[in-house]
């Protein structure tokens, strides 16, 4: 593992979201937060306690939450509405499409509980389709940071760098926190965490850490893997993808999301138009998750460093 990406200790990305939101609330008096009953579960309680006047409780009514956010944004506020990604992206998809995206309003939607690593709650609460649904909406920016430190930077960036709608995805389970704030966070600019010229691993969210581990496995057998943290799914960093396609022999994508419509599809859409290259996809194979310990579930569905390394080996031989 390159020295600069050592795990500082496991931490849920949602903690980063909560800390970043608190910071953003301090920096910008126009930031509002909308609660849909699971305020503490999505770590918005820090903001709610610090800025009770700017916290609006709306109960278990996601469609209304999104519409209210649109109304606040029309009046110049910067509303952040966070709930589980399955509810945010799916139940209120029409409100997001029309009231937020068609009106092109600066509303930030936090999609918590991303991926099977949600664990025991099971399939109903594991967001596996949210990237696909959010990224097809015009005007929408889709962020999927890789660890708690980066999620904290991402929410601040969503508030300070964006003008239109943003969907920000994060997880529940404590996972390696390995990036530094000094790396910064530029929306739309992927981070090459490791250079390499045999194969490129383009990963997002929790899978970025697995990609770094996969590169170690590959290095041991003489394969030089490039690791790219695609923290912005939309607008996607075409330049970095095209460079990976041109300079390495294959691309493996890795995400805790359905392979259909997810990061893999987004990367393929770019690669196939500019420099077609063999590709393999690590992600959910068009199925629902289930209850179980987070890491066991990731293992079962092939969301591990080993699975990434296996696919990468096959691609390089191909």
């Amino acid at each position, binding site marked *: 593992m390159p020295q600069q990406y050592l795990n500082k200790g496991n931490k849920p990305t949602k903690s980063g979201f909560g800390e970043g939101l608190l910071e953003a609330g301090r920096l910008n008096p126009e930031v509002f937060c909308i609660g849909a009953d699971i305020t503490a579960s999505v770590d918005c309680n820090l903001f709610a306690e610090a800025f009770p006047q700017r916290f609006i409780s709306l109960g278990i009514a996601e469609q209304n939450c999104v*519409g209210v956010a649109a*109304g606040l944004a029309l009046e110049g506020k910067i509303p952040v509405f966070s709930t589980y990604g399955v509810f945010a992206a799916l139940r209120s998809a029409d409100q997001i499409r029309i009231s937020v995206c068609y009106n092109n309003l600066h509303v930030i939607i936090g999609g918590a509980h991303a991926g099977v690593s949600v664990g025991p709650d099971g399939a109903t609460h594991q967001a596996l389709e949210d990237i696909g649904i959010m990224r097809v909406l015009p005007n929408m920016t889709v962020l999927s940071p890789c660890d708690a430190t980066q999620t904290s930077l991402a929410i601040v960036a969503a508030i300070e760098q964006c003008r239109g709608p943003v969907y920000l995805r994060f997880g529940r389970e404590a996972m390696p926190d390995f990036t530094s704030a000094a790396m910064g966070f530029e929306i739309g600019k992927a981070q090459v965490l490791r250079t390499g010229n045999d194969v490129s691993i383009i990963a997002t969210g929790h899978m970025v850490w697995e990609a770094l581990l996969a590169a170690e496995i590959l290095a041991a057998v003489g394969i030089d893997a490039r690791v790219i943290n695609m923290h912005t799914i939309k607008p996607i960093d075409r330049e970095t993808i095209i460079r990976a396609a041109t300079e390495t022999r294959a691309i493996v994508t890795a995400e805790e999301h359905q392979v259909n419509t997810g990061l893999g599809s987004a990367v393929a859409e770019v690669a196939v138009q500019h420099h077609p290259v063999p590709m393999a996809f690590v992600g959910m194979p068009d199925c629902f998750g289930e209850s179980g310990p987070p890491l066991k579930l990731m293992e079962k569905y092939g969301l591990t460093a080993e699975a990434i390394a296996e696919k990468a080996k096959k691609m390089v031989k191909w």
Partner: protein
Amino acid sequence: MHPWQTEDTGALRHIAATIRKSVVTSLAEAGSGHLGGSLGLADIFTVLYFSKLNHHPDDPAWPGRDRLILSIGHVAPVLYATLAHSGYFPVEELLTLRKMGSRLQGHPGRDHGLPGLELSAGSLGQGLSVSVGMALAAKYDRKNHRIFSIHGDGELQEGSIWEAAMAASHHHLDNLVAIVDRNGLQIDGKTEDVMGLEPLGNKWQSFGWHVIECDGNDIGQIAGAIDAACLVSGKPAVIIARTVMGKGIVRIENDYRWHGKVPSREEAVEFIKEIEYRILNTEF
């Protein structure tokens, strides 16, 4: 009230007739769209824009303006005609309705830059939530403008409306006035046959709203209802305005088949004659 606005019911009736004529003309020219609801709402839009709303057509984004949120985007023709006759844009532009490149989209779209348009909308059941957000922002900023939110009765079958209704009273939004176009009709027929809404007033009341009912085609009653709604404190107010779909043209009145239909050019000429005849004979 601004100098160019009026409380004179006779003058307002004439303006409503003018707006009706523009609705008919623009829809006939467009060749598709929603005539019935647009005609039924002409009196309410007239009273709002020409008497009750605090707004400046020459400064559409004036921060102190009252906001009008049209949740039922399909009756855009009556909003467009009212905005044009208020001076937001040239009346001739109404003839571009629904045409390629027009600022007058089939359902309102802000991205096309039409002055006076607060919200892009057309998917039913969303506008009340947006109005709640705007009302919350006004409360937070201690501003005195009001938010008027226009809804259809069929639209109230959407569950999201009642989520928003709950939120408005929970947060004591007395700066929010919802107006329901209670014409009793929707595309499939009578609301009470498709999915009954009654007792409608009781529903709003039990959600914590102050309920006012009126004849939504009677200028005096509409004005009185809006005044009463603006006096309510501590809770939001809803005006259930009983209207006649297609109001002003006898042969299409209360005919749900005219919800999503437009007149031919020949019919339009005939409809406009009827509107003119009736206003001359003060039948409105």
